């Protein structure tokens, strides 16, 4: 995580000197936000490295937007401290924080032209007319909207509006740029394309980007660091790969991917070179073996297996291939098969325990298999792929 800035940065085109800003990190220390008796954000401690692209990921109501608004200065902090760089910014008005925000529905001024929208922040800061002209012109060039500068927002497409909003925020040279669901108003194909542009722009500017999103694909593809939030708390912080393959809680496992989760009691934990091999006794199902860092025998916990990491076998086939000591094996009945393009999603119910599970196959593989709805099959998965979830 600390090496973000030493990663090779792709600069396709030079950013003009007067648009470059000094990237600063953000630190939150025990930050809490209360609305009356309702706690929206609870004791968050978090570091956002300078120059990183960080996503706050979580379902609606998890406190991610409130956290961002507190950093931006649009929401008071009930308790705790927020630092941008080394400066404590509690109570500072939004204007003096050197941050800029791109709003969810862009919040473009409908009565102003594209140029005047982008110019707004510079005008309010009292820059000279020459500086403003130069910077707005350069900024519109970067986002490719020069020929639209006289249009009103209503005369632009959704993607163009999005870029105006981005330009309006970037042109003020923020030390931290905050993006509130910047892609949610775009349609699917444009979203994927714009995602790439955002990432490229962040690399070019070398700016700290902090984005709020409820979409894990967005977080995976954009972030250097993902902060998963739930019920006003930080659940897990890590790189996209860490969050995807090593979730630490049931919530993260459920929210960030297609994981099958089994709750149970820890019956044994044996140290191995990879970590701890943990036996979990799942009610009505039996014992599952998973890999974790540390587990207390007797504690309630869970484990998860990604839907694409299981092997599906017919009963005959399973009889022939013996189940190794580090493999979990269950029998299940196929209840539904859903074709979604490259991936086929297969819903099953375990024969013991009645737990619903999901299996994902590559469609080209699935169409060569003989399995049909209603058939009873065997699911095998390696204990090393099965992730222990302490909470």
């Amino acid at each position, binding site marked *: 995580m600390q090496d973000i800035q030493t990663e090779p940065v792709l600069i396709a085109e030079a950013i003009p000197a007067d648009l470059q800003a000094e990237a600063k990190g953000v630190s939150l220390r025990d930050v809490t936000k209360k609305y009356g008796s309702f706690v929206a954000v609870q004791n968050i401690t978090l570091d956002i490295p300078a120059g990183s692209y960080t996503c706050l990921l979580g379902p609606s109501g998890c406190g991610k937007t409130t956290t961002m608004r507190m950093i931006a*200065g*649009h929401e008071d902090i009930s308790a705790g401290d927020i630092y941008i760089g080394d400066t404590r910014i509690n109570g500072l008005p939004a204007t003096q924080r050197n941050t800029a925000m791109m709003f969810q529905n862009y*919040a473009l001024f409908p009565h102003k032209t594209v140029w005047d929208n982008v110019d707004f*922040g510079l005008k*309010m800061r009292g820059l000279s007319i020459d500086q403003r002209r130069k910077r707005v012109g350069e900024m519109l060039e970067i986002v490719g909207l020069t020929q639209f500068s006289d249009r009103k927002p209503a005369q632009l497409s959704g993607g163009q509006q999005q870029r105006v909003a981005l330009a309006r925020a970037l042109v003020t040279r923020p030390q931290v740029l905050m993006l509130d669901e910047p892609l949610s108003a775009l349609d699917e194909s444009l979203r994927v394309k714009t995602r790439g542009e955002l990432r490229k722009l962040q690399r070019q500017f070398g700016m700290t980007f902090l984005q709020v999103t409820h979409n894990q694909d967005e977080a995976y593809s954009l972030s250097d660091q993902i902060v998963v939030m739930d019920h006003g708390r930080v659940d897990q912080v890590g790189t996209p790969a860490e969050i995807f393959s090593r979730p630490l809680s049931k919530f993260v496992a459920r929210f960030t991917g297609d994981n099958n989760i089994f709750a149970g009691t820890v019956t044994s934990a044996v140290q191995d070179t990879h970590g701890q091999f943990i036996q979990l006794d799942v009610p009505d199902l039996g014992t599952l073996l998973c890999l974790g860092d540390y587990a207390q025998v007797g504690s309630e916990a869970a484990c998860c297996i990604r839907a694409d990491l299981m092997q599906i076998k017919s009963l005959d086939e399973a009889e022939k291939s013996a189940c190794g000591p580090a493999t979990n094996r269950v029998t299940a009945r196929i209840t539904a098969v859903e074709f979604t393009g490259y991936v086929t999603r297969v819903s099953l119910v375990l024969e013991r325990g009645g737990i619903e599970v999901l299996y994902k196959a590559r469609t080209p593989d699935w169409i060569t298999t003989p399995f049909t709805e209603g058939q009873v099959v065997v699911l095998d998965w390696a204990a090393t792929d099965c992730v222990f979830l302490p909470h």
Partner: protein
Amino acid sequence: MSETWKALKPYALITPQTLVFLMFLVFPILMIGVVSFWEFNGYSMTPAFTLDNYQGILTDVTLKTYLNTFKFLGLTWLATLLIGYPVAYFLAFHVPKLEWQILLFLVCTIPFWTSNIIRMISWVPLLGREGLVNQGLMGIGLTQEPLQFLLFSDFAVVLGMVHLYIIFMIAPIFNSLMRIERSLVTAAEDLGASGFQTFREVILPLSAPGIAIGSIFIVTLIMGEFVTVRLMGGGQSASVGKLIQTQIGSLQYPLAAANAMVLLAVTMLIIISILRVLDIRKEL
């Protein structure tokens, strides 16, 4: 048949209103227009086409009356805007719940709950020579003599009009302020605008259509006003509406008709110029 009926059905909904409009607005105005060109000899009128009536009203008195009406209009417009805008702003931005907004908005309509005349007359003990205000001012020694202008004066007329018509300014401004997305205000602050800059750059331009509609209401209401002028002016104040009413009272119909046509034209001109300056299409 049923196809035709289906196509016509929507129009059936508006037919009654169209008829009312035609019979009781368009037709009478056309009648007035026609009568304004009839011959009049002081006793009887005969159908004809003459401009005598229009020449007859082109007098210093008429001009003065128009100027006085414009004075009422200007003062009332300014007062309703300066008093009404903050009220609308308060309702839209500082009252958090919709129920409270509606309730407080209804409070603004209280002046309409009693009859015009009773309300005006009840001001006599307040604003009259021996009224509360004068007694209070003399009591604390601010004035020696009772202030005469408080009642039966142009001041009283404007006071009455502002009080009566301010809701017509508040309502459209409130409506346009309610349509401003709150995120625009946050965005302006985020981009470094002060409270006043946010108001000047974002809120005021976006509420301009509401100001325009409110202004149109005020113009149409004040230009034809005669009840408040008569009651509050106490015979001292003149307005075009009152002039027309006096002419009707003395059965000078063609003169009154000519006056009415001029008034209509002047009112239309003012409204067109308002629409020239402020674009209200967004609000429609």
